[in-house]
């Protein structure tokens, strides 16, 4: 492998990692902070991609970003209302919304399951035009992706320090306390899911524009892939401060993508991505649990040996 090609490899991993890191940030908010496992992530990612692509094809690349976020926010609102006001179990609410979104997404794409943006102006082609002739020309995908990821990370860590951010964190941390306080946990859950889903949708919107196409499966498996990145990030540092943890999430997304790209280079078939993500998620969640049970298991085995 030459230096140039390995640099390219890292750059591709970085681009994809940064774009998908927005979904990781979304899960950091909903899964790590709010304590809700939002199973509508896959559908919401596709929704953002589809809504963004439609707006891009209508000739408004900038407008595609708020449009995707708004669509994601609405999807999050539905998931939240189902679980906070209508008595639907939170996992089921996510699954139901995810399933429903499949139809919604095809409807958004005008009845087709594939949209091409080959000739359309996207946020990335605009960056390409802007950087033409400069030394950074080759980074026309990387730079916008990095800007969006860093801006989202900055805003999210600032948000988590606001009163609403603290209330969302407290809802995930000690629900009993929030229930008997003046904060309505239904409201904090709703706000948290709206924000996290708009980030997920933005992530999908950017990925679609960088690939210049959307298909109905663009988001499938995204929840597990992003969760794997989130948990990888968690392994690297057990930092306590929120801004640090948010930055580590970006880093985790990059490391995950880099590992994946390297594995592809080593002739791992591309279809293995999801299995590997699943295994990473299982290991990252169950390892601490099994570790804490180790002394008990050891004692049991010793007793058996003695008997």
């Amino acid at each position: 492998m030459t230096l140039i090609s390995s640099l390219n490899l890292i750059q591709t991993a970085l681009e994809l990692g940064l774009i998908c890191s927005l979904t990781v940030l979304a899960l950091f908010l909903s899964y790590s902070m709010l304590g809700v496992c939002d199973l509508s992530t896959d559908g919401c990612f596709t929704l953002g991609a589809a809504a963004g692509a439609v707006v891009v094809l209508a000739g408004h690349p900038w407008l595609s970003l708020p449009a995707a976020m708004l669509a994601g926010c609405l999807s999050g609102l539905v998931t939240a209302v189902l679980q906070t006001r209508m008595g639907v179990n939170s996992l089921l609410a996510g699954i139901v919304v995810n399933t429903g979104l499949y139809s919604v997404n095809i409807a958004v794409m005008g009845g087709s399951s594939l949209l091409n943006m080959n000739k359309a102006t996207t946020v990335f082609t605009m960056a390409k035009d802007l950087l033409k002739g400069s030394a950074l020309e080759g980074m026309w995908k990387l730079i916008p992706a990095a800007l969006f990821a860093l801006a989202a990370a900055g805003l999210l860590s600032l948000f988590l320090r606001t009163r609403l951010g603290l209330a969302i964190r407290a809802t995930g941390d000690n629900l009993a306390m929030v229930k008997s306080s003046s904060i309505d946990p239904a409201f904090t859950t709703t706000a948290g899911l709206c924000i996290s889903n708009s980030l997920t949708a933005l992530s999908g919107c950017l990925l679609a524009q960088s690939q210049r196409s959307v298909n109905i499966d663009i988001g499938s498996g995204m929840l597990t892939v992003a969760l794997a990145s989130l948990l990888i990030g968690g392994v690297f540092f057990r930092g306590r401060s929120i801004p640090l943890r948010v930055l580590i999430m970006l880093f985790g997304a990059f490391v995950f993508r880099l590992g994946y790209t390297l594995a592809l280079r080593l002739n791992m078939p591309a279809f293995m991505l999801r299995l590997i993500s699943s295994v990473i998620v299982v290991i990252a969640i169950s390892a601490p649990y099994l570790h804490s049970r180790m002394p008990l298991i050891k004692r049991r085995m010793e007793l058996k040996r003695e008997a």
Partner: protein
Amino acid sequence: MLELKNVSISFSKGTADEHRAIGRLSLRVDEGEFVTIIGANGAGKSTLFNLICGSLIPDEGSVFIDGRNVTMDPEHRRAAYIGRIFRDPMRGSAPGLTIEENLSLAAGTGKWMSLGSRQDHKRFRDALAQLGMGLEDRMTQPVGLLSGGQRQAVTLMMAVINPPKLLLLDEHTAALDPGSAEKVLDITKQAVALDRLTCLMITHDMGAALRLGSRTLMMDQGRVIYDVEGEERSGLSTQDLLRKFRETSGRELESDRMLLSAGRKP
């Protein structure tokens, strides 16, 4: 200030286990009163608090606060002016948030997008310094690292940082070791006196029930069976309370916990 009119609530309705936890209870508490409440397990003390806070809605009767009927107001709306502390010190604060973040959540003035200000920081620091536990120098540490007593003291600060109209203490020192319990009780006394808070305190410690506050209620089977204040109260001993219970209910006050603490010198 607080008024309950003919409030009743039953649990497990329509089953063989149906029982009336509170039966036609009426109670008036004036502003600035500090009321201690005693009674055996199952007497309805915590249920009474649940009805006042709105975590339970009575089957019959109404709850008034400052003359306004709040019977149907949701719990989180009432929590804006009612502070409540539970027996479990883990219950009242978020372990993953720092001491300062917990306080600023409790002190929040309702602007959702506001960040903590420097004045707030100083206010929290001063409040924590009053506890005399050195917590003012640990404001950036997660609350989960504190001991039960320290955590309950922080919970108390969270409840009174914006003085509530009504403070409800539900055996808030019962899960602490004797030293911490004494300390938290002292802080409670100070905080209530400082802001002249209207306060209801459930306790299993009969000595504390007579020593603290200005009025004592004894509850049994969902009713108030003895309500004492003023001179009559100051002449009472814990033995008198036990006798009173026997006379009114025809039973011994069976809780070991209460008997043990009744034996202790007030």
